[in-house]
């Protein structure tokens, strides 16, 4: 999106989930960040207030966010236990609330490990105000199969140093073929007889 128009917000990923075609698999991965702002506290004593790290990035709460605390590029690493098919990445960014912390240039890389990453997508955001859906397809227009995804924030709006990211969701396609190598059925009549529960 290199047009000067603002990036339009995408649909809420929950709706995507309800179609039954994709499933959120962030819970099956190990998340790590390049840096994050620590919890507020005084010396050894913490005030038990929420920090700005992975938990806030994955808590389904758009009010809490990750705040980086280092030099660019800021990285979010998602590592799966096994090679997983990933279809879509959803990032929530809001220029109005984050201003200079809003990312403007994001690079998505996949690979087997840290040394093996290849960029498969780069996106530019212009004053985003909601969910950004990033399809992760390979050269053949199919969802990528990978061990690891790295989301790199290369630049922020207004040349901000640190970045805020409010929520990230990662989706895998659901193969609902319960029996046989067939695609999903569409009518309840078929679905009723499809399985025993």
């Amino acid at each position, binding site marked *: 999106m290199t047009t000067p128009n603002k990036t339009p917000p995408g649909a809420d990923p929950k709706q995507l989930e309800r179609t039954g075609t994709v499933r959120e698999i962030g819970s*099956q991965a190990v998340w790590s960040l390049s840096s994050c702002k620590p919890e507020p506290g005084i010396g050894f004593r913490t005030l038990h207030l929420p920090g700005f790290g992975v938990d806030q990035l994955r808590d389904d709460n758009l009010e809490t966010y990750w705040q980086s605390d280092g030099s660019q590029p800021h990285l979010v690493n998602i590592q799966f236990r096994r090679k997983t098919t990933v279809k879509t990445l959803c990032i929530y960014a809001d220029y109005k609330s984050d201003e200079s912390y809003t990312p403007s240039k994001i690079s998505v890389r996949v690979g087997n490990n840290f040394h093996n990453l290849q960029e498969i997508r780069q996106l530019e955001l212009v004053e985003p105000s909601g969910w950004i859906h990033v399809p992760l397809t390979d050269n*053949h227009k199919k969802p990528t199969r990978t061990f690891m995804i790295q989301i790199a924030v290369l630049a922020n709006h207004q040349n901000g140093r640190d970045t805020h990211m409010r929520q990230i969701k990662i989706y895998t396609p659901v193969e609902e073929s319960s*029996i046989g190598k*067939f*695609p999903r059925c569409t009518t309840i*009549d*078929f679905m009723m*007889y499809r399985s*025993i*529960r």
Partner: protein
Amino acid sequence: MTVLQEPVQAAIWQALNHYAYRDAVFLAERLYAEVHSEEALFLLATCYYRSGKAYKAYRLLKGHSCTTPQCKYLLAKCCVDLSKLAEGEQILSGGVFNKQKSHDDIVTEFGDSACFTLSLLGHVYCKTDRLAKGSECYQKSLSLNPFLWSPFESLCEIGEKPDPDQTFKLTSIQNFSNCLPNSCTTLVSNHSLSHRQPETVLTETPQDTIELNRLNLESSNSKYSLNTDSSYIDSAVISPDTVPLGTGTSILSKQVQNKPKTGRSLLGGPAALSPLTPSFGILPLETPSPGDGSYLQNYTNTPSVIDVPSTGAPTKKSVARIGQTGTKSVFSQSGNSREVTPILVAQTQSSGPQTSTTPQVLSPTITSPPNALPRRSSRLFTSDSSTTKENSKKLKMKFPPKIPNRKTKSKTNKGGITQPNINDSLEITKLDSSIISEGKISTFTPQIQAFNLQKAAAEGLMSLLREMGKGYLALCSYNCKEAINILSHLPSHHYNTGWVLCQIGRAYFELSEYMQAERIFSEVRRIENYRVEGMEIYSTTLWHLQKDVALSVLSKDLTDMDKNSPEAWCAAGNCFSLQREHDIAIKFFQRAIQVDPNYAYAYTLLGHEFVLTEELDKALACFRNAIRVNPRHYNAWYGLGMIYYKQEKFSLAEMHFQKALDINPQSSVLLCHIGVVQHALKKSEKALDTLNKAIVIDPKNPLCKFHRASVLFANEKYKSALQELEELKQIVPKESLVYFLIGKVYKKLGQTHLALMNFSWAMDLDPKGANNQIKEAIDKRYLPDDEEPITQEEQIMGTDESQESSMTDADDTQLHAAESDEF
């Protein structure tokens, strides 16, 4: 028990009977502190247990020696409740390592409560994987007391096939009296002095005549041990008070209902003999309402009996008024009632004028001189015995067809005894003239009458239990159609109850007839909205039908009502699973397991959720847990088969599906799966056979036809595949898979235009799916011809929705034309 304890004990029992547990516990604690007897210990433990604190009862009883059977039984019960099965077993039968007692030892030791003890022991054995021993215990328990349903149920569930006809019958009066509490033992031991006491209540009737009667009866005891029971009837039935007819019937009914109540043991003083005192544990009954155990209410013997003393005639062996018998309830054994009533009616007929009087007592015996009684009673006794014998013979044969008659009668005659009933009964009695000729009913003592009525009621219950037992057995063996048939023939007032409807709903569920099941279950919710058992099946039915609103209402209602029931949490989990919120569903299923770790279905559902979140190892563990809890849970075997299928371990998958099928042979879904797996194992002939079988069992299952078509397609039998698919198109016209497969067939046949047509239809019908497979199928079509198929395809079929739809629209008109040509 000493005199000191009596009032305190009475007070404690009264508190318990009124559910005032704090009072009961407090008093019991004081009593125990005062008198450290085992009796008091048992009483205190009972108070704790009834107030819901099994652990208190357990610790109390553990801390003190328990030698009496009742203490042992209670302690064992607490152990089982607290999941200390080994300990429970040890208490009841000597444990695993020590010398075990045989069932006979247990029977002698526990006496009356042997049936419950054996049932508990059976439960322990079944839970510890000793099904054979468990089933033995259950059988023995049922033979001791056919009134127990749960051993029968457990036997069905572990896969045994107990015979309801053999199980639910009153084989001998010995059994009959054993089933009933203390008071009924008086029936057997008629010699004991204590049992004479109730007869003192027969103030109006000369004591000696009664005793004489009894002795007569006893003397001719060879065939007829019933006579011993007369004393039982006396006390209950006869009260010095004049009781109005309505309550009179209720009295007898109360008396009958009183059978399971221990309150009867208080039958000591005259006060306790009033039928209306709570000591009888009687619930007042106005009408012969269904669902009571006391169908004897229709037998207005009691009122007649009661009124006998009031009329003051010394020889009041009042005869049961047949009139009342007109209001027969279901329970009243047809044979019995018909045979008894004629006897009774004969008397009324003999005392003609009296029949026309109000349905109060008619005591034809008033006319007969007292000293004739003994003779008559002996004759009565013989005739009675013969009739009872006839009764018992006719019982089983006659009863089932009579149920509808009963039902209508009881419906019309609701409200008690009225004149028309007399006419009814009189008519009936004319039928059995043979018996009438025999019966010198004039000497039919109230005791015997009442006892006959009791027995009749019990027989009635037995008949009902036999039918329900047959239905339940059929359901547990998954003969669902049979089960539905049997259960639908129950009388309507029993049919329209939660338990029966839930079983029927479950039967429809197992037949995959989810619409019917949903209808039945919503009826259950309407009539018994406090029922949770069976609601998990309802929730799964709604899940299959994808009725998310109904499911969410159900789950909310259930979880609000009972947070400690696994069924409620299963429903909640199903609700979220339907919304595809698998993590939350998993949470709820885990909660269901926490609430009841012995609930197999929760594990199965959790396993299915893990399969949906692709965590197959966890899913395997869950299904295995379900099987550990209940080896006959075929859903779990199916789940395991599915996982192995996903992992492409086809022979393992087939084995597990086959195990599931062994448990539930009429499931077309299972057969369908087996067919597909066999096809995957390259056993296509067998696969086709299996699928044919599946279609025969359930012609409504479209997936069987679909898979048959796909197997035919894989075996290159395109024409037959097409034929199958065309039929399927008629049955399920909106299913995209059907068109997809037709497209593939045409592609193979080289008819690319038709193939494309069908593919585009398939895509139309599955808009949100954007099924990659369909796209691929279309792509591949071009691949051999073109080097750059994809971009072209993308342009034509891809992201440009409007183009695609317009193309399909244009195609559609052509297609329909083409179709008409082609087919």
